[in-house]
């Protein structure tokens, strides 16, 4: 038995005891299959152990315990909707406890748009099973067969005589029932939904508009100290000497210099900051030769051998059959997650136990990291995740939790590590810069003849096409987060890989449509029979009133199209832009996004996630680019890392394409993947300039316009 399984069992026993009366449903779902790239990227397989707890209390209140976290994506509400609907209660009796390793079941982490797709079914099964358990109790209580009972808003009625009823709370009273779900419960069909498929007010809303919502940095413990940690001037730098004497002499300041961790601590964070400034350090800094312009040659030359996940047909024959061939190289920049809440953890290490309140997407990932750093058994570390102020893939690593825990262990007091913005830009696991090399051809009938695709550093997610291309090869160089390849940390950034890959691949498709003298929509429809792809293309064309035109406009106004699939969802975008040919400024007038995400649990939440992805994608389109010189991160704050502000948000229209035959799919990531290509294709339509590098700054747009 693994340490993790032991922990789960122990905690479960204590947990059941602590809950007191009521009905507790434990869900044990079978191992849920995830695509290979997700498993590869995310370590341990989604657990086959216990996935969720659901508790019905004696007052009829229902609590779902989930190892997922709420970082703005709205899953607190949508998971609550799923449980409420299957259980047959109103959302207002639902409570959702998230991300606490002591009371919630193990979970891999909140990322990859997996909460609704893979965790949602387990929650629904638990709630459906709970309904069966409760109606069995009701059948005994009322003395009628279960088949004659119906559940409405937490009350079980005898269908023949509605005066004959009993509430869930009454049934739970005096009971202490623990039921483990193992069989597959019958879930509601879409037509039976009473809580799902609607957009109720979010469960976290009131907390968030009153300032009452607690984030890790809002936690307070008696005697706690704030830490400011010494950072090297560049990644890879090593200290020659560190002099903490001036800081240590400051009143109210504690200095730590142990095992490579140098920090100034004080009850007042500004005093800790001044003390850090008083620490003198000399560094050996490795020579830096590569910057944001030179990185692309570096990524290619250092890539090593590729993986070749796709190799079909005969590329040479395809080339021979081509009327036109195109070979284009595309580049994307390093991007920061830049959540407005920096990484923050408050750690309290005492009596051989550690409690850490962490801003993290991965409480159960932080737990063993902290345990290792402290030399503790894993069961002596508890991670509690309050609301998380944005993650976007950047809050998966647990560095700040480890720092806080180590410092707390050393100084014997609770320690808050709340990274200043400069630390956030230094320690971020940036979305990697990438190189895409695409060679492709098209015949006289407008069919794609061959496709030879090479991606460097972005990884394989979204690298293969949705088009029917018989002669096709995909080569992936350097993986996504390969060590010693980049000069600083890299990691997943909203729809990791897919947004980089689509930037090149959907522009190449557009370029081939133009080369074939075809309208970009017709060209795509001619080259794919995938019904979901066709459906979103037709939906976005209808919404945007797409009119066929083979020739580009070139009058400063342009319209682009892009198609993609990610996290089980299909998306097609249309963008209208105007380009100022004198300045290179691009104004996005409107974006349409058609999305097929299967059953929609919360339509408004789904739309907001799609809008959020589009808005974040616009930043990557126009301005987001990390500035660096080797391991030295030059970007320090928002003045040198511009992302989308209110004035840059165009009109956005989300079209949710109905597909109730498919279980709910991902929603947080898909809408971002097409943004680079749809805008670049629109700029091409407006100007004839092909933008092969992200971000498409006014200078770069102007430079390309001048080449046309």
């Amino acid at each position, binding site marked *: 038995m693994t340490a993790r399984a032991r922990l789960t069992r122990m905690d479960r026993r204590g947990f059941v005891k602590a809950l007191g009366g009521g009905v507790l449903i434990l869900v044990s779902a079978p191992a849920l299959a995830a695509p290979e790239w997700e498993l590869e990227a995310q370590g341990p397989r989604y657990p086959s152990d216990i996935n969720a707890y659901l508790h019905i209390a004696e007052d009829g209140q229902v609590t779902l315990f989930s190892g997922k976290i709420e*970082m*703005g*994506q*709205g899953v607190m509400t949508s998971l609550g909707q799923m449980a409420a609907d299957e259980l047959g209660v109103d959302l207002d009796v639902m409570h959702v406890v998230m991300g606490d390793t002591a009371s919630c079941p193990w979970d891999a982490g909140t990322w990859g748009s997996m909460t609704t797709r893979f965790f949602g079914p387990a929650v629904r099964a638990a709630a459906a099973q709970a309904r069966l358990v409760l109606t069995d109790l009701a059948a005994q209580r009322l003395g009628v067969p279960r088949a004659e009972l119906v559940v409405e808003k937490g009350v079980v009625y005898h269908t023949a005589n509605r005066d004959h009823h009993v509430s869930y709370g009454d049934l739970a009273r005096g009971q202490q029932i623990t039921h483990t779900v193992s069989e597959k419960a019958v879930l509601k069909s879409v037509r039976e939904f009473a809580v799902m498929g609607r957009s109720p*007010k*979010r469960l*976290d*809303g*009131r*907390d*968030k*508009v*009153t*300032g*009452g*919502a*607690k*984030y890790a*940095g*809002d936690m*307070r413990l008696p005697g706690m100290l704030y830490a400011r940690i010494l950072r090297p001037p560049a990644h890879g730098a090593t200290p020659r000497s560190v002099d903490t004497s001036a800081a240590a002499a400051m009143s109210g300041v504690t200095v730590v210099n142990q095992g490579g961790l140098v920090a100034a601590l004080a*009850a*007042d*964070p*500004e005093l800790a900051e001044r003390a850090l400034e008083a620490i003198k350090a000399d560094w050996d800094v490795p020579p830096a030769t590569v910057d944001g312009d030179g990185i692309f040659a570096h990524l290619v030359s250092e890539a090593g051998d590729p993986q070749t996940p796709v190799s079909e047909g005969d590329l040479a024959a395809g080339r021979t059959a081509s009327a036109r061939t195109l070979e284009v190289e595309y580049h994307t920049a390093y991007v920061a*997650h*830049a*959540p*407005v*809440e*920096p990484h923050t953890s408050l750690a309290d290490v005492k009596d051989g136990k550690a409690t850490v309140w962490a801003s993290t997407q991965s409480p159960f990932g932080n737990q063993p990291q902290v345990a290792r750093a402290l030399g503790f058994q894993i069961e002596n570390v508890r991670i509690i995740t309050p*609301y*998380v*102020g*944005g993650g*976007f893939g950047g809050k998966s690593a647990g560095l700040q939790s480890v720092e806080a825990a180590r410092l707390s262990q050393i100084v014997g007091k609770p320690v808050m590590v*709340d990274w*200043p*913005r400069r630390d956030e830009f230094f320690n971020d696991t940036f979305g990697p810069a990438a190189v895409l090399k695409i060679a492709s051809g098209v015949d006289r009938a407008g069919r794609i003849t061959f496709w030879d695709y090479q991606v460097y550093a972005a990884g394989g997610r979204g690298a293969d096409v949705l088009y029917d291309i018989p002669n096709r090869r995909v080569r992936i160089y350097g993986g996504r987060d390969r060590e010693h390849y980049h000069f600083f940390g890299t990691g997943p950034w909203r729809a990791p890989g897919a947004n980089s890959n689509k930037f090149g691949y959907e522009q190449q498709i557009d370029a081939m449509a133009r080369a074939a003298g075809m309208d970009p929509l017709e060209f795509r429809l001619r080259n794919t029979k995938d019904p979901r792809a066709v459906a979103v293309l037709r939906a976005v064309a209808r919404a945007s009133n797409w009119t066929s035109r083979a020739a580009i406009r070139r009058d400063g106004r342009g319209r682009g199209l892009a198609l993609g699939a990610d996290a089980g969802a299909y998306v097609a975008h249309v963008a209208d832009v105007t380009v100022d040919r004198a300045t290179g400024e691009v104004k996005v007038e409107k974006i349409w996004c058609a999305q097929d995400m299967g059953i929609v649990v919360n339509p*408004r939440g789904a739309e*907001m996630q799609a*809008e*959020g*992805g*589009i*808005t*974040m994608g616009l930043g990557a389109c126009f301005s987001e680019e990390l500035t660096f010189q080797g391991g030295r991160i030059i970007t320090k*704050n*928002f*003045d040198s890392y511009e*992302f*989308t*502000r*209110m*004035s840059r*948000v165009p009109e*956005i229209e989300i079209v949710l394409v109905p597909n109730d035959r498919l279980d709910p799919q991902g929603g947080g990531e898909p809408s971002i993947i097409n943004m680079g290509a749809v805008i670049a294709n629109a700029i091409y339509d407006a100007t004839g300039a092909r933008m092969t590098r992200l971000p498409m700054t006014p200078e770069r747009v102007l430079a390309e316009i001048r080449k046309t």
Partner: protein
Amino acid sequence: MTDTIRFTLNGKAVSLETDPSRKLLWALRTDLELTGTKYGCGEGMCGACTVVVDGQAVRSCVTDLASVQGHSVTTIEGLSAGGELSPIQQAFLEHDGYQCGYCTPGQIMNAHALLLQNPKPTRAQIVEGMEGNLCRCGAYKHIRAAIEAAAGQGRQS
């Protein structure tokens, strides 16, 4: 250097014996335990720390305590005194003007000041007034709708 700083906070007189060069943000978050006001950038660039001083939005992370001596400071906690949401908070709730919620107190306080200055702003004035408040989740459309709705009620928020 310690001084006595007196000001009005959410309608009540407060007094702090402290260094007047400290920033309002940290005094609010630590000494006064009002954690609704958030740190985002520390240099007045993101708006997460916005509070209202004498009816004007200010970035509390770059505001010295000395400068609020004798003035009236309102934080997010002061908008719903007594438990009832103010119109601008109600509008943010109704229009889902938030996702992760971290920038939200700053957005609401900036909008509150905007409506105090200009109870009937045009859409362009709203966008201009909110330009310095960053939202990484991209809830801008809903934030704008919330402010328009609050303004449309014809009441000061």
